[in-house]
């Protein structure tokens, strides 16, 4: 039943996204729109349901295998030498972390909370931020945000500079050397492959299907729908189980909302973190600092005009 509701809201969100896309077909239209909570689709992950079976990981790999890199070897010699070659093509079976060939993995944690031991497993992948720094700060526009809230990297354009990973609070995108556009430009001096991460099965969603990880889950851990509805559901669920929410406010808001029976602070201490294994720390809004200067940017020309007028008045007085 829950899955049916999820599908209905999902399709409704898809229609709203399509309408939004049509409205913004002219560059610049609706440029300064408010975050569209109806068009952006979010996923709710009820961690208490996850049994860590890995069906989502398997489904993700099967569904997205055609998008995985197929690097040419030998790799171009990189200058300077400090540029790291990152090759996962011989380790495509790795599923215990994020790699260019594994966009979703299961994190495990044992947490003692309120005198009770909790064995927790949770699927980890891109959070699909509401205002994603990986998309906004990509210097070439290779990363893009779809109207339905999905952020994805265009592997035909990405040069593999890894900036998206450095600005991502969770270091999600992963690089594969020896593939992509950089090979046709200056392979030894600029770029280093292509960055890969979860695209929430954007192509399946465009056809009205569910992302593979949601479809395959035997426990219905994930629900997808318009962000405002998902937030409401997450809050209701958290209230019901006396639980905790992660992803609603992190980095200014994401489209991946976790609800856990134990505090994320405790969960974060217990999970294995490191390369390709993202944390669960609180995250401030990374784009907000610069964006908060926008008002000053609007006022700047007014200040300039005022200064010129001041000069005009001064000159007029002194010439009399």
């Amino acid at each position, binding site marked *: 039943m829950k899955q049916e509701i999820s599908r209905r809201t999902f399709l409704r969100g898809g229609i709203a996204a399509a309408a*939004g896309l049509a409205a*913004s*077909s002219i*560059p*610049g*239209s*609706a*440029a*300064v*729109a*408010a*975050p*569209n909570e109806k068009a952006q689709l979010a996923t709710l992950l009820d961690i208490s349901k996850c049994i860590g079976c890995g069906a989502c990981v398997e489904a993700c790999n099967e569904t997205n295998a055609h998008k995985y890199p197929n690097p040419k070897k030998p790799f171009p010699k990189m200058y*300077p030498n*400090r*540029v790291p070659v990152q090759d996962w093509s011989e380790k495509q079976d790795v599923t215990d972390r994020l790699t260019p060939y594994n966009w979703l993995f299961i994190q495990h944690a044992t947490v003692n909370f309120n005198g009770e031991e909790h064995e927790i497993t949770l699927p980890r992948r891109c959070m699909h931020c*509401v*205002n994603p720094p990986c998309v*906004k*700060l990509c*210097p*070439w*526009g290779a990363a*893009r945000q779809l*109207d339905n809230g999905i952020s994805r990297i*265009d592997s035909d*354009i990405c040069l593999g*500079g*890894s*900036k998206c990973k*450095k*600005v991502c609070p969770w270091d999600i995108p992963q690089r594969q050397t020896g593939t992509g556009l950089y090979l046709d430009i200056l392979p030894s001096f*600029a770029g280093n492959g292509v960055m890969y991460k979860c695209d929430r099965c954007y192509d399946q969603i465009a056809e009205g299907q569910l992302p593979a990880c949601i479809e395959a889950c035997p426990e219905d851990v994930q629900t997808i729908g318009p962000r405002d509805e998902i937030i409401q559901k997450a809050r209701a669920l958290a209230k019901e189980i006396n639980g905790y929410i992660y992803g609603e406010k992190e980095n*200014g808001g994401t489209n991946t909302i976790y609800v856990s029976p134990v505090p994320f602070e405790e969960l974060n201490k217990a999970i294995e973190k490191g390369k390709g294994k993202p944390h669960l720390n609180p995250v401030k809004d*990374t*784009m907000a*600092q*610069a*964006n908060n*200067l*926008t008002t*000053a*940017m609007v006022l*700047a*020309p*007014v*200040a*300039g*005009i005022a*200064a*010129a*007028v001041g*000069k*005009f008045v001064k*000159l007029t007085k*002194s*010439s009399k």
Partner: protein
Amino acid sequence: MRKQRDMISKMPNKAVHYIYLITVFFLTITGFGQMPIFKRYYIADIPGLGWLAKFYVTHYIHYLAAILILALAAYMIIDYFVLQKKHIRLTVSGYVRGAILVGILVSGIFLVIRNLTGSRFEPGFIIFLDLAHLGLVMTFLMAAGYCLARKRSWVTLR
């Protein structure tokens, strides 16, 4: 009248000139810092330049410098069209540099809007903006270098 002309001929004054140069310098260096090149090519390893490899820092400074250049641009436009139009005129190289600067500012403004939450530009338009912004800056630097070498001024007395 002569007094006014004498005063005007000293404009733009040195303070504005240096603020402009410093602003353009920081805009350029932090703008290039948006590409992952300073760490790769050891520039961020030079003591005191480590900040060039920190994308959020360069992004923030780029915004601060953009605020200054917008204020300066508005000041100079009013100054030229209202105050000094009768006494000075833009040279050909001044028009060329001004037009390139306007292009940089306009593409930059669109990129600032792109960075706001909820902005919805087409992907192709964003790529165009990124490339246009960078291409115009490179063109501006070449034009500025040429003008510096050939001692071409922005304005001349009528």
